[in-house]
């Protein structure tokens, strides 16, 4: 196993070479990173990034050029937080990462300006920013958001996606030294929406990021979240919760890059599936590079299949280049709804439908309870109720 250079240009050059050879890239750090959509070949099952998704599913988000996003963006934030539209010349543009696949690159090149939200260094833990993205535009469009949490800042940023868009999105999250922030991305779209979102986090010294992806509504939801440590003492928690109905496709791709010593990462994703052709994909890549001694990482994915005809793919990948680590582990399990649980609850008078709800709610609760925002918690609980209601289970 090679230890590749962690600077972007070098990786780009190397990967371009491998890409040209037409051989699937095996080593995670060697994957192509580029802002230029022309560097990426078509969406095809041959490449790991697209092993589960099809071009058809992406509904045009893998085209060379997308429209610029023209839907609503609403924002609520306390004093001190600033917002601005910035061009690619801005130092924050591209500061947290670069696209690793075609749809992300297409959105990157098509959104000339990015919506920059800055949390100042004196922002406190109760600083809550809500960004509402609501669009009915069904032509494939591109949006770029940058969250810049300055050193020592605290706070929560919530990205709330609604409507029926076909949206290619890049979200950059810059977590400054000693900053501690939470970012929650909620995909609660109408049933026709198609959404590809690449979310890049870069963590500074002793910083903490809690990132959560909640995917509920939408025809195709694909969220790729990556976290890269740039200095020691970083701590990232990547949480996810999803609920796929009949015909719905939800993909979550995670990548944690431990490039420096003494950082910690936890990945916990839980999903429920019901209905014919409900399909979820979870791919969790964790790379512990040679230099990343003292790394402590654990990733977990659990899926609960409520009905026949649903499919959950779960693929944890752990690449370890050094033995001098605190701990590294992963767990992945997809199970059918447990009939014994159902029997137990029914034997206490609870009807089947209510029993199923209790079990699903319980299963997802572990994630919901970590949100730490009562309003959102109750909204998500209500959304899950509605999901269960729709299926008539």
């Amino acid at each position, binding site marked *: 196993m090679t230890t590749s250079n962690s600077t972007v240009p070098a990786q780009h050059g190397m990967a371009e070479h491998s890409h040209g050879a037409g051989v699937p890239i095996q080593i995670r750090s060697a994957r192509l990173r580029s802002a230029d959509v022309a560097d990426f070949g078509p969406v095809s099952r041959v490449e790991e990034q697209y092993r589960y998704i099809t071009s058809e599913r992406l509904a045009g988000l893998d085209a060379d050029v997308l429209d610029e996003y023209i839907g609503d963006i609403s924002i609520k934030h306390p004093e001190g937080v600033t917002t601005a539209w910035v061009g690619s010349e801005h130092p924050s543009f591209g500061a947290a990462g670069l696209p690793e696949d075609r749809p992300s690159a297409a959105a990157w090149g098509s959104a000339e300006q990015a919506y920059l939200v800055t949390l100042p260094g004196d922002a406190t833990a109760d600083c809550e920013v809500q960004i509402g993205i609501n669009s009915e535009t069904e032509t494939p469009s591109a949006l770029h958001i940058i969250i810049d949490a300055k050193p020592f800042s605290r706070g929560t940023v919530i990205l709330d996606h609604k409507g029926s868009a076909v949206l290619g999105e890049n979200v950059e999250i810059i977590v400054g030294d000693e900053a501690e922030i939470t970012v929650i991305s909620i995909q609660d779209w109408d049933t026709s929406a198609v959404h590809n979102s690449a979310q890049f986090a870069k963590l500074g010294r002793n910083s903490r990021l809690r990132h959560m992806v909640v995917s509920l509504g939408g025809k195709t939801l694909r969220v790729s979240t990556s976290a890269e440590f740039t200095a020691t003492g970083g701590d990232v928690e990547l949480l996810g919760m999803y609920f796929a109905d009949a015909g719905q496709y939800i993909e979550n791709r995670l990548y944690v890059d431990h490039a420096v010593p003494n950082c910690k990462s936890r990945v916990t994703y839980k999903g429920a599936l019901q209905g014919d052709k409900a399909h979820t994909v979870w791919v969790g890549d964790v790379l512990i590079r040679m230099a990343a001694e003292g790394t402590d990482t654990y990733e977990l994915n659990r899926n609960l299949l409520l009905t026949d005809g649903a499919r959950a793919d779960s693929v944890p990948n752990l690449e370890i280049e050094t033995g001098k680590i605190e701990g590294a582990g992963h767990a992945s399990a997809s199970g059918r709804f447990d009939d014994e*649980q159902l*029997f137990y609850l029914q034997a*206490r*008078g609870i009807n089947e439908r209510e029993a199923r709800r*209790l079990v699903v709610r319980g299963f997802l609760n572990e994630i919901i309870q970590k949100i730490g925002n009562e309003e959102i918690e109750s909204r998500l609980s209500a959304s899950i109720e509605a999901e269960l209601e729709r299926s008539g289970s």
Partner: protein
Amino acid sequence: MAILQIKNLHVTVETEQGTKEILKGVDLIIRSGESHAIMGPNGSGKSTLAYTIAGHPKYTVTEGEILLDGEDVLEMSVDERARAGLFLAMQYPVEIPGVSVSNFLRTAKTAISGEAPALRTWIKDVRGAMDALKMDNTFTERNVNEGFSGGEKKRHEILQLELLKPKFAVLDETDSGLDVDALKIVSEGVNRAKEANDFGLLLITHYTRILKYIKPDFVHVFVAGKIAEQGGPELADRLEAEGYDRYVKA
């Protein structure tokens, strides 16, 4: 006065070796206030009887009937049976992650009585029953059966028995895995609940030791899927002295 009648009950289960008949014609009548002990060696079908009464989908009734006050129990779903007044304290209650005991108890009580219990009296009832079973107050915040010790699981079952107030209670080896102190506490809970609600009790056990604390009116010896002998409490004493050998060899 309620009555539970089991008539000529035959039950099969699917195994890897094909369909196997476990119960081979069981007849039993239990009335409100009566305590029946079913005793028998391993594999005699005692637990099958318990789960068949509760309606576990694993078991198929091929012949016979179960009537609760004349109503056909076999026609009812599992939850309908519970709402009709049947309760099964399970030997191996399953974990339900993420569902707290307090949420579970309230949901069950609401389902059984058809309306949500008045909050203040409900909390008082739960606390009172828990205190009596020597369960810590924080217990209600834990997830159902998750990380419970064997004793905690059994106390939790009996807590439900006290709170849900069934007409008939089937206790499936509630005494197994309990030390003497826990056995006493659990038995007292059963006696207290019975005193309060006058239910009919079907106590399934392998051992006689629980019968020191819960006095049966009738003892039935269960062998090879049928009742082989029945009598009063003195039959339990004889089993204590002689064991099941006499029946197994026969």
